[in-house]
């Protein structure tokens, strides 16, 4: 029968396929194979840089075979990591957005790194001491280490120096307070009748960026965005945040020096590069992009203060997902230590524009050379002295969105700052309720 012959052929093929799938699992000898999930948040070229980094690691570590798996944006990386944990096949290491760590720890998705640090014969303080103090808040939860900082950023004020000179301002003395910044923005705004042809300043507001900028403005107004010690509280309905949002709204509605509505980060950087916005607040992660594309002289400066100089950090940490076999955990730890060493950290920083979290990276000759050639990269590092952790709560993203939706309404002239922040606080309290129910409100 023709039919049965086909069936046999099909069965034979299925059998050989099944064999191919099971045999590699049986062969236990050879190097420990591990996967590293990595996102590319800024530029497509990074995927190639990561490829060469991992190739070098494999050549120098014959006992381990690491594979870099590109997993999209920060958010996509969280989805894929969670999916693989659920499927019982978590990757050995992941480069994870630094403010997702707390939420993952609450969901029991992270490996506590303390035993691995202890096995190396170092103390926690010695290990963490390699990194800038500002970065430790997002890596340590309940006094245990859950993440190792890999690449980090802070917000910066970018100034078009040519336009500043045209307006009679000295770009070497950038604005240091909100009052000075408002004056600069007014002088840098050009109008034709009612129409604005050049904006004084642009601050990005899209999901993710908007919350980060709100934290930036609130912190430089003396406030705190969230409770750094406990993931169940945010401080939206406070004078410091009210001041921050009111000032941002005044730049739009009262002084008319900031474009109205919510503008995402790429639109802000394009606007700055094309000369349509004379100043902008953006991540240090965009520094390489601006350096490569700006056809004018530019300056970077600290974020101006109203009450104090303070900024949040951004960026990503290396984590080990929960549920990993011991030998793979060890291999992942070797990879993580190698990737965050001064030399590799510095190399990655020069390739991406993020700063290197390992302080010793700035003492390597390559880095000293690079900073001499690009003094603007130094500003981000100097600002680290006043940097604090990135907001991280239970359900970080929805809690952040509760604020962002209201801020967007304010920037579009649909709500007043006071009532918007009250609504944001109410919504966030509701989102945080289940966590509080089993922590702060679970009473004996």
């Amino acid at each position, binding site marked *: 029968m023709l*039919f049965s012959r086909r*069936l046999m052929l*099909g069965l034979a093929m299925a059998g050989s396929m099944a064999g191919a799938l099971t045999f590699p699992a049986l062969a236990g000898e050879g190097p420990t194979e591990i996967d590293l999930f990595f996102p590319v948040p800024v530029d497509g070229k990074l995927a190639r840089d990561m490829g060469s980094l991992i190739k070098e690691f494999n050549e120098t570590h014959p006992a381990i075979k690491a594979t870099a798996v590109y997993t999209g944006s920060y*958010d996509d990386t*969280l*989805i894929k990591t*969670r999916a693989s944990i659920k499927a019982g096949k978590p990757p050995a290491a992941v480069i994870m957005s630094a403010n997702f760590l707390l*939420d993952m720890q*609450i*969901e*029991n998705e992270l490996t506590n790194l303390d035993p691995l640090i202890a096995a190396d014969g170092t103390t926690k303080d010695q290990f963490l001491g390699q990194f800038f103090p500002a970065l430790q808040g997002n890596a340590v939860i309940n006094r245990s280490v859950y993440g190792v900082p890999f690449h980090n950023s802070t917000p910066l004020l970018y100034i078009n120096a040519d336009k500043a000179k045209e307006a009679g301002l000295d770009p070497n003395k950038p604005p240091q307070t909100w009052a000075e910044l408002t004056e600069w923005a007014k002088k840098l705004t050009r109008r034709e009748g*009612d*129409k604005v042809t050049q*904006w004084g300043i642009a601050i990005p*507001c*899209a*999901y993710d960026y908007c919350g980060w900028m709100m934290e930036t403005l609130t912190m430089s107004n003396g406030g705190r965005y969230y409770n750094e010690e406990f993931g169940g509280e945010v401080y939206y309905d406070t004078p410091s945040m009210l001041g921050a949002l009111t000032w941002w709204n005044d730049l739009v509605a009262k002084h008319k020096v900031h*474009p*109205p*509505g*919510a*503008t*995402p980060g*790429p*639109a802000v950087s*394009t*606007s700055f590069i*094309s000369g*349509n916005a004379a100043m902008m607040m953006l991540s240090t992660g965009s520094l390489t992009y601006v350096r490569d594309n700006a056809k004018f002289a530019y300056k970077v400066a600290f974020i101006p203060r109203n009450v104090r100089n303070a900024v949040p950090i951004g960026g990503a940490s290396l984590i080990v997902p929960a549920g990993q076999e011991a030998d793979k955990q060890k291999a992942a730890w070797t990879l993580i230590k190698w990737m965050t060493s001064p030399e590799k950290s510095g190399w990655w920083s020069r390739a991406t524009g993020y700063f290197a979290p390992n302080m010793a990276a700035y003492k390597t000759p390559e880095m000293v050379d690079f900073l001499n050639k690009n003094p603007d990269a130094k500003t981000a590092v100097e600002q680290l002295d006043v940097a604090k952790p990135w907001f991280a709560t*239970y*359900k970080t*993203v*929805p809690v952040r*969105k509760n604020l*962002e*939706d*209201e801020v*967007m*309404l304010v*920037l*579009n002239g*649909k709500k007043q700052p006071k009532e918007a922040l009250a609504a944001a606080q109410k919504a966030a309290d509701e989102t945080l309720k*289940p*966590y509080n*129910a*089993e922590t702060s409100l679970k009473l004996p």
Partner: protein
Amino acid sequence: MAATMRSISRRDEMSLAEPAALPVATSAAPRLHVLKRFSSRLKASLPAYFLLLPSLVFLALFTYGAMGRVLIDALYQRATPKAPVRFVGLDNISAVLTDPAFTGAVVNNLIYAIGTAVPSIGLALLFALALSRTHAVNSALRAALFLPVLIPMVAASALFLFIFLPNVGLLDYYIGRLLPVLPNWLGDPDIALYAIMIITVWKNAGYYMLFFLAGLQAVPEDVMEAAHLDGAGPYQRFRHIILPELKPTFLFVTVIAILNAVTQVDHVFVMTQGGPSNSTNLVLFYIYQQAVEHYDVGKASAATLLTLAALMGLTALSFRTMANREGGP
């Protein structure tokens, strides 16, 4: 009791009229017959089932299995992050239905469905009528109008992201001279949904045009000629001959357009992430948010079930539409 009494009495009546064996024989024979017919049919179609087996296996693994899993997940929820998941029945469904973000997404989706289906179908009909005769120029124009269909939605969204850039984008560069204030196309909650709709219309009108072109081929030539001879003008021919002939096409395209409005949200992902302030949040994106951002599998599954039910209703409608088309006038 009463039923058995009645059946007994009826059998008695029957036995009075006919021999008692007869009803038993007639009732047994067809059953045997059916069984036999079924087994012989099974034998005949066995190879067909074997041939279908691979796709059935994959459908079961990746479609029906996933749907079953969604159905189960929709019934479970955990009260607090560390608590175990427990059976909650329809609580997830009612939580979704009372969530203002979900009802907002449904309203947005309705506006989006009507606002994209009507203009894109109207344009598609217009294009099809204008380009119904086949010659070189028309073929080139058809290809030009069909081009947006060939561009993946994600790529198109990335392109439009630059077109919509406030102040420096292509749109503002040309329109900016005419308007007193430049709109922030994707950053203003009053405009963003309509900006998204423009892309959908641009992308789908050419696709629907194909259906109308095919429908126009089916308009009988002799009827048109007869109408022409009887002195019917172009409008009368359009109103009384072409439109009635295109009715099944209309129904079909409408269903497709509505299905697209629910299932195509790539541009929302790329361009607005549902913002600003949820103004472009559509149902499918809401499900994504529940599953990924809120990490609430129960609620995401419940919303999926509701959407699936709506889509299945639409699919049933589309099958009926297609049946109508085949059996139609």
